[in-house]
């Protein structure tokens, strides 16, 4: 996976470090921090073991808390496995229809410009059912942050092909692997949105390892900060594991995500302060 679009690389300033475990614990490993997740109401959830979505959610909530926005945030949630997480999120929420979170966030932001508005959507939700609305919301430069949890499948319905499923990926309705001649090509939604004039910040992250989780958090911080500065539409796509929907053992999820989805949906920042990165 190429990380070179993330200009600052992994390491410096990361909230979470990768600590070598082939030697006795060093100081960094003994350092004690609070591991109680911010802004959560329950210590458990109903998603599958090995699912990447709770990892991504935690970064979102931590970022909101760290930016001092806990009492100003409004989340608009789509329909997918992550919908079940709403019962444990301790921020104000509006539950939207499948695909329709960006329009709902738009209306809410127009009436409450002082609030931090974000959407939480899956690839099926955003890139299949609701593609036109995220594009128009971005093109209008709505000052909201749309967050995509991209696992390349409809996880909730049981592992079906979405618009972001990569070529060769096996799903319940592309049993032999996605074939461009039969199923068309995947949409790289971050790349598409980055090219619209209304977007201020666009990045793609992945939660397949600790460094990726740290990078996810950094990108979320930047997207929210961009909204707080009133720069326009911001977007963070987070690649998440779905071992259940991919029909692979749980432990193989992170490797599969990095190798297969990560090779096509490349991690990195695509647009900052309204300027395309490397363009």
């Amino acid at each position, binding site marked *: 996976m190429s990380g070179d679009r993330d200009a600052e690389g992994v390491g410096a300033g990361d909230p979470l470090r990768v600590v070598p475990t082939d030697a006795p614990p060093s100081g960094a490993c003994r350092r004690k921090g609070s591991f109680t997740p911010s802004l959560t109401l329950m210590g458990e959830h109903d998603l599958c073991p090995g699912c990447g979505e709770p990892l991504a959610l935690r970064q979102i909530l931590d970022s909101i808390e760290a930016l001092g926005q806990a009492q100003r945030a409004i989340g608009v949630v789509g329909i997918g496995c992550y919908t079940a997480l709403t019962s444990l*999120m301790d921020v104000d929420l509006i539950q939207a229809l499948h695909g329709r979170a960006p329009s709902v966030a738009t209306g809410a932001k127009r009436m409450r410009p002082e609030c931090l508005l974000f959407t939480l959507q899956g690839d099926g939700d955003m890139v299949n059912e609701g593609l036109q609305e995220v594009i128009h919301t971005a093109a209008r430069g709505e000052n909201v942050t749309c967050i995509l949890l991209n696992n390349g499948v409809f996880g909730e319905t049981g592992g079906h092909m979405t618009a972001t499923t990569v070529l060769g990926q096996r799903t319940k309705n592309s049993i032999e692997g996605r074939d461009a001649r039969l199923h068309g090509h995947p949409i790289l939604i971050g790349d598409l949105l980055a090219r619209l004039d209304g977007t201020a910040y666009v990045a793609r992250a992945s939660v397949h390892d600790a460094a990726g989780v740290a990078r996810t958090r950094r990108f979320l911080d930047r997207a929210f900060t961009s909204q707080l500065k009133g720069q326009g539409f911001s977007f963070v796509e987070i690649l998440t594991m779905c071992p259940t929907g991919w029909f692979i053992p749980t432990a193989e999820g992170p490797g599969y995500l990095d190798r297969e989805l990560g090779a096509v949906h490349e991690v990195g920042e695509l647009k900052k302060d309204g300027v395309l990165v490397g363009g």
Partner: protein
Amino acid sequence: MTASTERRLMEGSEAIAEAAIAAGCRFFSGYPMTPFTELLEHFARRLPDEGGACINAESELEAIGQAWGAAATGARAATGSTGQGLSLMQESMSEITRAEIPIVVFNMARGQGDYYQATRGGGHGDYRHIVLAPESVGEAVRITQEAFHLADRWRHPVLIYGDYLIAHTAEAVSIEPIDFATKDPLPPKDWAVDGRLGGTGRSRNVNPIGMEKGSKGIDPNRFWQALSDKEDRIAAAEQRWEAIGTEDAELLIVAFGTLARFARAAIRDLRAEGLRVGLFRPISLWPFPSEALVRAAAGCRRVACLEQNAGQMIDDVRLALLGSVPVVPIGGISTDPAGFGIGALLDAERIAGRARDAYHGREVPRGVVA
């Protein structure tokens, strides 16, 4: 230009937009379609001056989504379209009802063929919402303001059923803000999201799927049954109608919206001829004023259902009367070649002719009224 309380000639679309703004509406979104378009135009021109927002949405799907988001923050918000656009909005209409979000939706319909869509809960699932049908621009001004009050009163969507004539006829009206809340105080909007309860353990989730913070699963009693019970209370409390000349009527015409206005003129002529004809006009299409209709029809030989469609409201009329009085349809499909619903049926003389037939027990012509 600001809202004026002085009486002046105003096109229906402008009057409705002004009435909505007078009622505190600060958000509107829509997608152009005849005869709804001018409503969108007026909101687009006026709302920014009032500190509000009007969005030219990418489709009706997003128009109602945007109004949903605005209303969920506690703002008074509205959207609208024409029947076809309303069809696209139905998934949201259903869910907004279930999420108990107050919102006002205008259907500037092409004729009266959207009666079923408006009154049956046009989307999926088990729900109804309030539907009000004004017969004139003046009444639309009042009903528009009342709609925002009722939406907040019940935390329920209210649909206003208008048409080409309501949207495009200019009538002398004044837009005076009507105070409904002094007589009927509104509950606080403490359910609306403003972000402030984040991190307190009491944050909200305005949602249509029965999710509750801190717990899993849906309790059917607290969710579906509670909504159904609320709809029963609305049905009992919010029936509206007008009854004219029903005391001695032998024939009762039932008609709603602008068509009722033509019926009113027809009845004047029929009365002058000595025929005892009355008018019953449902103003709330849901809840349908069934008991009032039964009272109005008592003593009539026949009830004539006048509607500009193939026969939809007649179901509600027959359900209300339960065979106690024969019900005959005297309307029908009637439109201009563009399909905007301006048909030959919108004519007092033609309606009088059909009512005369019904009065004397003659057969009323069926098929397209041209």
